[in-house]
């Protein structure tokens, strides 16, 4: 898939993967990789970016006597996902136009 196109979608995929429950790096990869290719090194900048944009919140919890960083979607993140669905409708129309 085109890299630019994929890049935008990956942010949304990560947001969507924590839509219903908080998650951590390894699990996010596992969840997303069933649908699209994502590597550990691509995920890091995305998580960092989402955090900077205040779309996700992070917190640490202890798991197996070590610390694990969890990512939690916040209101702005949910808004962004909702917005993306509207965008997809537009993309669908564009796609139909391209394909004709």
């Amino acid at each position, binding site marked *: 898939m085109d890299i630019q196109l994929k890049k935008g979608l990956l942010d949304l995929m990560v947001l969507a993967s924590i839509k219903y429950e908080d998650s*951590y*790096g*390894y*699990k996010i*990869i596992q969840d997303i990789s069933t649908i699209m290719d994502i*590597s*550990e*090194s*691509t995920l*890091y*900048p995305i998580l*960092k*970016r989402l955090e*900077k944009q205040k779309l996700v919140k992070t917190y640490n919890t202890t798991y*197996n006597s*070590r*610390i*694990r*960083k969890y990512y939690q979607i916040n209101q702005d993140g949910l808004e962004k996902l909702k917005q993306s669905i509207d965008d997809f409708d537009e993309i669908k129309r564009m796609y139909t136009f391209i394909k004709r």
Partner: protein
Amino acid sequence: MNKRMFISKLKKELKNYKKIDSEEIIYYYDEMIQDALDEGQNENDFIKSLGSIDSIIGNIIKDGDFIKEVKSANNNSLINIVSTTVRVISLLCYYFALFIIGIIYISIVIAGFSVVAQAGIYLAVDNLDTMGQIALGAVMLVGLGIGLIGLALIKHLLNNTQSIRLYIIRKTKQLFSKQRSQ
């Protein structure tokens, strides 16, 4: 490669990139590997699947938005909390310092290369014996060395303008807060 080797190699490589938050990245990979191991994945295979350290760092750098955001976040957090006076004064200091340091470095380059030129001219014009020629050749090499050192210093300066600026802002701010408390 096992986890310990991977992490220490990553740590070592990240030292070359001051703008990247290496601590956090190491933490991220440490957790990632540990989670994979807990899930029963093979340590060597999983670490192999992470790709080379170069490609890991490359991916972080390639993500231009990310770097830009981190940069502006660093700038903003510092600049927002300092007053206009501090900002103006520190900016003036910054350009002045940059100007002085720049001139010093440029003069080192000029000095170095003029030694090369001078020695070259002597070598070409004067009729020297072998010993003299060797001596002048050595002088030329020394000049070349000085010139290259100057160039390296200029390059270093250009690479580090950002950190110098932040350093000066911080220092000016400290100066001001000290005066206020006195």
